[in-house]
């Protein structure tokens, strides 16, 4: 479904992705962790070309993301993206937030889109918040609207960029719960997160990134019990002790 073939990216002189090789199969849940500045956010942002790459090949759903001629709006419609800061549209209600893209991009009739939007918002536990504006919702509720916004496009892939990092602790679980349900349904997901409990529970594989390199990638049992690299061990000891 997603394949990185020796992908490099630079921000000016800064080499942020150094030869990434990675394959993610359809239905797989991959959790990416690593220290801040390790390039993990950049990695998932290249998948829908929020960040262009400078070298290598990146194939997503059979389309060449690295090729400037690839129609990106078409590919982006197939990839849901959830941001750390939610990035909801503040002038629209929850229902309007989730139906905008189906109506504009998928050309879905408004009534149909609203029926879909209500169904998906109910699925993330927000059936009673359809007509609230983002400012009236808690962080956890806003993030669930953001997930619903992605799901309303019936995406093939969902990408999560630190979806719980901006949330108060008591709201983290309601968001993770929605993501767990999604993983159980067989959605292809890449999740950048430090929620190692979530990784243990739902990830098929866990990857560790540092200094723009993919240091280690393994199933969670192996990844947590027998980390191969010293850097992974050091990182895990830092985040698992508290």
């Amino acid at each position, binding site marked *: 479904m997603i394949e990185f073939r020796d992908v490099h990216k630079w921000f000016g002189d800064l080499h942020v992705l150094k030869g990434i090789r990675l394959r993610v199969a359809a239905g797989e849940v991959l959790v990416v962790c690593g220290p801040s500045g390790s390039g993990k956010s950049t990695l998932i942002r290249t998948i*829908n070309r*929020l960040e262009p790459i400078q070298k290598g090949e990146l194939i997503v759903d059979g389309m060449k993301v690295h090729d400037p001629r690839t129609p990106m*709006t*078409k*590919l*982006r*419609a197939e*990839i*849901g*993206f959830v*941001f750390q*800061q939610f*990035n*909801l*549209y*503040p*002038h629209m*209600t929850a229902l309007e937030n989730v139906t*905008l*893209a189906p109506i*504009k*991009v998928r050309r879905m009739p408004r009534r149909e889109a609203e029926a879909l939007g209500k169904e998906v918002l109910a699925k993330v536990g927000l059936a009673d918040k359809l007509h*609230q*504006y983002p*400012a*009236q919702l808690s962080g956890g509720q806003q993030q669930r609207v*953001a997930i619903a*916004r*992605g799901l309303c*496009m019936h995406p093939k892939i969902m990408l999560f960029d630190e979806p719980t990092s901006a949330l108060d602790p008591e709201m983290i679980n309601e968001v993770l719960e929605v993501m767990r349900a999604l993983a159980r349904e067989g959605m292809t997901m890449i999740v950048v997160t430090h929620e190692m409990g979530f990784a243990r529970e739902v990830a098929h594989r866990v990857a560790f990134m540092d200094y723009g390199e993919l240091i280690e990638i393994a199933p969670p049992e192996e990844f947590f019990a027998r980390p191969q690299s010293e850097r992974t061990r050091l990182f895990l000891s830092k985040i698992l002790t508290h």
Partner: protein
Amino acid sequence: MLETFNFRVILEYLPLYGTCLLATLWLSAAGLAGSLAVGCAACAMRISRFPALHWPAAVYIESIRSTPLLAQLYFLYFGLPSLGVPVSETTVGILALTLNSGAYMAEIIRGGIQSVAPGQIEAAVSSGLSYLQRMRSIVLPQAVGITLPPMLGQAIVLVKDSALLSLISLMELTRAGQILTSERFMPAEGFLTSAALYLSIYYVLKALTVWSRKRLIHLHTG
């Protein structure tokens, strides 16, 4: 001081003030409409990626903002005819207000557009929305709310700036004061009456600004 103030002469000139108040209103309204159109166009060009659009707009905005309106007015009034373009005083007046205010409007609109959080644009990009769809559904609806109060502020400035049109002998509020002064030698009565009428326009626009700010707050909290 007030006992020497001649209200009778003001009453006598009231019809003149009435006509001139209307003239100020319509010159300002025309200038405002023109400056909105010019401001939108200049802003669209200014934020464009294409140098051929970007640079002319930047030069226009910078040169207007760095020179006095009076100089711009004289340039149009004396300059255009000498370049062989015959224009009436009214046209010159409206043109000067339009071009001057248009540059400020362009910057106000640009501020509104750029105040829309980049994260929202990324979210819209990620959903597959095109540039025009993002502008129409995400950026402009928010920019309108954000720019309304500063635009009304600019409208207030424009009304006051229209006083300069008296210098190219257009009939408007300040000119009415000049006429009363020169015919009856009563500058206090003449210009205070003009000032009072400017004040009344100001209060109407200010009330609109306050109302629009309240609307804006509603917009963001539902």
